[in-house]
């Protein structure tokens, strides 16, 4: 049901530029105003959210540890430097592997129950599907985004050309098919399929989980349509894109409607981004269980709101309360008076 709603939403989103551009002739509106506004929403929302996070305190160091910590004898008990980092550098590498290789997902397991011969068995097996789908999806998305830089930069940076070359290495079809185009669509379909088919994952999926998948899928499909079928005028598009970055707006007449649909959907994604779970992208860098070294026993760390007024129950009170039996049991007292029964004192 949630998936259907999402599909419907995205469908409606496609209709807006379709009619807007063709019927209402609002080319400047869809070519310039919408993307510029969306971009501003994206930047402001993104920064606002990250600042909100950064402003909330990190009172305690609570890194998740996966493996042996640094022991008194690092030779006898070798430290797992990546999963239980104790220095800034080790923590940095942990983060790099997390961000670029999705390391935590890589160790994913799946549980299953079996009836053994005479007793039950709980089994865990490695399950790397999610990792694989996620890697394919994210890397494809990332590379495609970088490839788009050629539209916004003049001259085109060498790495963008390089990327394009590698991406089109298979040289299938004309224009050459990009591997990442396939990867992105495949990645989305696999992730979406997983959400639909796995009953547990389906159970925890909201509209807000399906919607970005459908939205990105429609972006990918509109892009692919433009490039391989509609064969839009790339020179004109670059003109428009360069106009946007240099604040010198032009909307060439030769650009087809499929481009406006693509741009509109991308704008929707940008505007939606800061308010959605897509913020996991900056969030992973700020996750306190991953981005801190596990050195709390060795180094002092300050809690900005530590309350100095919270103090232990005073020993003096304790001794006053239990002094008599303590004295009888032969336990030492700070104040011998406390050991006297009330009648002795009087």
């Amino acid at each position: 049901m949630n998936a259907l709603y999402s599909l419907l939403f995205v469908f409606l989103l496609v209709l807006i530029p379709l009619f807007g551009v063709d019927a209402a002739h609002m080319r400047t509106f869809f070519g310039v105003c919408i993307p510029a506004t969306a971009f501003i929403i994206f930047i402001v929302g993104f920064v606002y959210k990250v600042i909100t996070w950064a402003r909330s305190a990190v009172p305690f160091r609570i890194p998740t540890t996966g493996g042996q910590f640094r022991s008194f004898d690092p030779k006898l008990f070798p430290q797992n430097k990546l999963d239980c980092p104790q220095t800034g550098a080790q923590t940095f590498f942990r983060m790099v592997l997390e961000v670029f290789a999705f390391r935590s997902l890589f160790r994913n397991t799946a549980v299953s129950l079996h009836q053994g011969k005479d007793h039950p068995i709980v089994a865990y097996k490695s399950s790397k599907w999610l990792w694989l789908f996620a890697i394919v999806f994210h890397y494809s998305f990332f590379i495609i985004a970088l490839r788009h830089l050629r539209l916004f930069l003049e001259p085109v940076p060498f790495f963008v050309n390089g990327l394009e070359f590698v991406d089109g290495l298979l040289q299938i079809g004309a224009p050459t098919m990009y591997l990442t185009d396939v990867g992105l669509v495949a990645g989305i379909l696999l992730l979406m399929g997983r959400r639909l088919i796995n009953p547990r994952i389906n159970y925890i999926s909201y509209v807000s989980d399906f919607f970005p998948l459908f939205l990105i899928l429609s972006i990918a499909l509109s892009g692919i349509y433009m490039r391989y079928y509609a064969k839009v005028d790339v020179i004109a598009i670059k003109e428009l894109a360069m106009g946007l970055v240099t604040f010198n707006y032009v909307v060439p007449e030769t650009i087809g409607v499929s481009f406006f649909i693509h741009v509109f959907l991308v704008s929707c994604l940008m505007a939606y981004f800061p308010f959605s779970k897509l913020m996991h992208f900056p969030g992973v860098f700020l996750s306190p269980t991953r981005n801190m070294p596990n050195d709390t026993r060795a180094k002092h760390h300050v809690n900005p709101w530590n309350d100095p007024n919270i103090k232990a129950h005073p020993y003096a009170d304790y001794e006053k309360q239990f002094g008599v039996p303590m004295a009888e049991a032969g336990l030492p007292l700070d104040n011998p008076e406390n050991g006297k029964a009330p009648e002795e004192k009087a």
Partner: protein
Amino acid sequence: MSDIPKADELFKSIDYNPPATGWMDTPVDFSPGHWCYPAKPEKMEYMESKLPGLWGPARQWNPGEADWKLPPNWKEIVVKGFRERLKKFRTLQVFMDICVRCGACADKCHFFIGSGDPKNMPVLRAELMRSVYRGEFTVAGKILGKLTGSRVMEEDVLKEWFIYFYQCTQCRRCSLYCPYGIDTAEMTMMARELMHLVGLNINWIMEPVANCNVTGNHLGIQPHAFKDIVDFMVDDIEEVTGKRVKAPLNEKGHEILFITPSGDVFADPGIYTFMGYLMLFDEIGLDYTMSTYASEGGNFGSFTNNEVMKKLNAKMYAEAERLGCKWILGGECGHMWRVVHQYMDTMTGDTQHAGMTTPRSPITGTVFETSAATKMLHITEFTADLMKHNKLKLDPSRNDHLRVTFHDSCNPARGMGLLEEPRYVIKHVCNNYFEMPDGTTREQTFCCAGGSGLNTDEIMEIRLRGGLPRGNALRYVQEKHGVNTMACICAIDRATLIPLADYWAPGVTIAGVHELVANALVMEGESERKMNLRQEYLPGYEDEEDDWTPPNMEDA
């Protein structure tokens, strides 16, 4: 325990397919057995007098009834508390925003594995809070409501929290697998802080908290009783070894203060571990004292709110100062070590007295730089160092009738990274050591399902369900290697693993690591060992005094 299904039936009842109704529309079961008993009003009043404003109205109430007697403005209190904590804890703020509901954590929680209840999937457990966050604090959630999984704070929501945040042992296993390190244990801590504000709590936590504050330990053992128990243990040690060991209490002027969870002083089999500490310290002539005032290492405050955690923790440094100790040695305890490692120096470091020094073993001279800030050393680090330097005379063959496995307690494993030291110690004192299967040990260890104050009997079925993953791994090594003993380094484990093993792997005994150490320890001038610390005859001596019952078994 009569109405608890047999292990086989319970296993068959687990169904991982979620119900047909969406999670927000699926009602919560409030029948007895699904919740822990609320705190006694006098405990609440006591805590209110010590840390005012954190506890809501003290009252008698029953989770099984419709009226929980909440204060009239409960909603404002919870929402305001929530907002405050978003500022005070970046974990909470970030984890509210970035979960992508990928489900990687879903089948990592022992409570889910053993129950199949989807609200025990860590992602959904956190969604119970996150949905309120979105509904109360975000624009998108306010406008789009259910489509984004948002809802507002209502009494039913709060009641649901009470059930499910007291079905999380804060073991952090889920966090290990989450691509963003989202720590549901941290969410649970926050939810519990919020519930405390309106007087929703459980007695098995609040009574220990109150006790720890007054008497120093969670069982409320008063100092003279504490001394009596220790004296008994000294007698028992003499019975077994022929040696009378020293057991200094509240003495000033020693180098080291030793603190262990009070479960080791009171409960069987923890007492054997405690006897183990005493024997070891006596044998190496350690200059130490224990304290009746700081007689609890386990910090029940960490199950309530950070204010209590700090208050209880502060006792350790206060007592080190009063007694003039240079550093603190800590016994086998789970939560204590999570608090010592992650929180102690940050919360109470400024209360250390000037004479405290980085721990240095007076026997081997090793300086433990890893605890330079807290000045507090874990006993398995200390003992491993002794063993490395050959300072102990050990006869592991005395443990030859034991086939031993090791249960990594969640807190030292995942809240600290202490994995190899206990294994090293065990392997020095036992010849037959076996690991449980991969995926159930070290950082992937499974909880005993009784941590974070949940080791109470009224939720026994929930505990046994949560104990399935641990119990099943244990059963595996029992069948494969004939394992008959599971060692651990946590006092709560020593209490909770017993019913768990009886249920899922009958025939396995639970022991502390230092119990095993002491049984293998050859003490200077000891008499021939015929019994272990439990006063059971060692193999080869069984026939002696056939009709004799060990004193501690008489009324069993």
